């Protein structure tokens, strides 16, 4: 069997049905073999978007997302997307073509050391030198990407190797990597200590991160919170880990979180951190009194414990779901009524105001996302880009029941939402659902070409574009750091006719300049079977806080 064919066979054995790629010289044998494979190839319009499609696909389906690019510029275009997946712990496998083995290291045409370039932000990577290794490497790559703390794995495949003929192909089922044995179960001693600490605490909070979602531990977290009566705060990545209409839900923490959520953190005497890395973004504005707060840190990655916060009182290395079940194996009921009363007072002192009294013209995006929450189905997936649009969607769109919220939380990669939402759509083609892609006029213009994919496949992606003609979040930071009129490089000076853009791609477009118009447009968009673009005019001075 020719190695190129073997590669696809191996991917089929990993249950890969869809890949997101862009061809090139170093991939010619693989694309030739792909024609006879059951795997569907989605031609992205720029390799930069390919890992984001794979990321949205992975987050929605729970499977490993796969992207593919040729050597050199194709591969380097994947870099940002791979780093994005790394920072958010999303399981993807990136395949890259490489120049012939005898040309590696000679600065050949379209040669780039993608293996070396991506080592800092891949969970693992391979440069294949012997085609006989392919079955093992591909099996290992999918195993590594999807187990433990998930993450991206890169496989670099030289062109001449793809053309080699292999006799006696041996597929690999079992993986045994000596240096990779993730820990799922918590240390019993530490779990016991944690239970004691939880019981003796007076003002505990659960600080839930993306790890709760990656381990599909939402039900366990809900039960744990209800059994103990402990309130739940999430990080940006943790949105969706806990239903937002639950009485114990206490909002989103961090530099862009709710003020009341941060205040609650400040009052807590015990933080039970589950599947979060206590990142700078998450702990800004709330760990001023970390000295008075004890920390139980549950994470599947031992290196996250003690990395950002020095004083972890009880470290538990393990999978969020498994450890929650272990914690619940003992009686952990406790009375938190006094604490919940204090929290109610904090909520009243720091209410969510929606800036409802603003005199600025245009759409109030906070009220808009709140209203959109009331008209979309309970299984909607919202993919937010990066910037003000992201924060408004994160804070004001309600994630309840089976809704999902995806964003580039760790790396903060603009132009994530549209390709990732398309990835969600590819993952749900058999059971189409409502998919919202929220972006700004900045991020929209960064990946406009991908509209071609959405249009080609008639994907039910409903784009909500916040158009303030500015790079709003950076502009706000310029204002906050340097004062009014210290704006620099954040004006998008050309007024694009986005309706014409939508029309060019045969995407139904709506332009709205009031909340009523926007909501009506979104209602109409939701009723359309295919893609839509709702452009929401927002005043440039409408800011985050």
């Amino acid at each position, binding site marked *: 069997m020719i190695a190129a064919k073997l590669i696809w066979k191996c991917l089929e054995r990993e249950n890969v049905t869809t890949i997101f790629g862009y061809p090139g010289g170093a991939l010619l044998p693989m694309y030739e073999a792909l024609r006879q494979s059951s795997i569907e190839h989605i031609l992205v319009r720029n390799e930069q978007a390919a890992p984001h499609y794979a990321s949205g696909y992975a987050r929605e389906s729970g499977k490993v997302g796969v992207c593919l690019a040729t050597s050199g510029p194709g591969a380097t275009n994947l870099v940002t997307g791979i780093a994005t997946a790394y920072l958010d712990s999303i399981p993807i496998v990136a395949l890259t073509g490489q120049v012939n083995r005898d040309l590696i290291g000679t600065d050949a045409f379209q040669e780039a050391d993608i293996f*070396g370039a991506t080592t800092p932000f891949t*969970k*693992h990577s391979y440069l294949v030198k012997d085609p006989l290794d392919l079955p093992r490497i591909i099996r290992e790559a999918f195993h*590594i990407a999807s187990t433990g703390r998930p993450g991206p794995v890169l496989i670099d495949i030289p062109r001449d190797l793809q053309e080699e003929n292999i006799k006696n192909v041996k597929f690999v089922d079992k993986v045994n*990597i000596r*240096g990779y044995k993730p820990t799922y179960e918590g240390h019993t001693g530490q779990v016991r200590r944690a239970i004691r600490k939880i019981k003796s605490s007076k003002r505990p909070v659960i600080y839930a991160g993306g790890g709760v979602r990656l381990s599909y531990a939402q039900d366990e977290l809900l039960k744990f919170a209800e059994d103990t009566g402990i309130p739940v705060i999430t990080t940006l990545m943790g949105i969706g880990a806990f239903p937002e209409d639950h009485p114990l839900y206490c909002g989103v923490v961090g530099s862009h979180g709710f003020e009341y959520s941060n205040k609650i953190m400040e009052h807590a005497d015990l933080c039970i951190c589950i599947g979060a890395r206590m990142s700078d973004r998450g702990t800004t504005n709330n760990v001023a009194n970390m000295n008075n707060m004890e920390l139980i840190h549950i994470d599947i990655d031992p*290196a996250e414990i*003690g*990395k950002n916060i020095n004083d972890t009182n009880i470290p538990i290395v393990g999978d969020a779901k498994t450890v929650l079940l272990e914690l619940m194996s003992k009686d952990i009921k406790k009375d938190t009524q006094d604490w919940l009363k204090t929290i109610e007072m904090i909520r009243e002192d720091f209410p969510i105001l929606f800036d409802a009294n603003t005199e600025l013209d245009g759409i109030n995006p906070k009220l808009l996302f709140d209203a959109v929450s009331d008209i979309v189905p309970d299984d909607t997936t919202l993919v937010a880009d990066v910037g003000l649009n992201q924060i408004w969607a994160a804070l004001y769109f309600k994630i309840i029941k089976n809704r999902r919220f995806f964003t580039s939380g760790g790396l903060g990669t603009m132009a994530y939402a549209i390709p990732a939402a398309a990835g969600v759509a590819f993952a749900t083609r058999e059971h189409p659902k409502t998919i919202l892609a929220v972006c700004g006029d900045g991020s929209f213009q960064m990946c406009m070409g991908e509209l071609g994919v959405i249009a080609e496949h008639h994907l039910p992606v409903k784009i909500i574009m916040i158009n303030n003609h500015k790079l709003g979040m950076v502009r706000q930071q310029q204002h906050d750091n340097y004062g009014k009129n210290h704006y620099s490089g954040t004006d998008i000076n050309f007024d694009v006719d986005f309706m014409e853009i939508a029309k060019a791609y045969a995407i139904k477009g709506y332009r709205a300049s009031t909340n009523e118009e926007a909501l009506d447009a979104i209602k109409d968009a939701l009723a359309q079977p295919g893609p839509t673009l709702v452009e929401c005019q927002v005043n440039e001075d409408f800011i985050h806080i």
Partner: protein
Amino acid sequence: MERHCLSLLVENNFGVLARISGLFARRGYNIDSLTVGTTQDDNFSRITMTVTADEQTLEQIKKQLNKLINVIKVIELKQGEAIRRELVFIKVKANDQTRSRVVEISNLFRASVVDVAKESLVLEITGTLSKVDAFLNMIEPYGIIEFVRSGVTGLQRGKHQIGC
């Protein structure tokens, strides 16, 4: 901040050393020395490194190293529990007047003379960091032309082993 000696068992694969040195570079860890060599099993290599770090950083270094898929085991070679040695070559000025005194000092330290020229000697010494430093200190007045240190390597004493 203290100096610590780490011993790593790693897969003898393409790119492993780059992963490790890259990890130290991008996370800002101080690496004082690094040696690499094969083991009794061709599939594995042994890396010995000395790092200067406080306890918390050392803990992170070990955890981050363990995260690398190609790293099989990380142990600390602690004084008393392990043999730690370094090999050093020193080219020192030596003429007819000073040669015998340099050789005398070398003998005291069990260093050996490995090259003799009209105006210089090359000395070879193996020992702990403190022994090497003491020797360099004694030789220094004669005029050190250049020296090269292999970096520390070491092995646990007794029944302990890193396991291949």
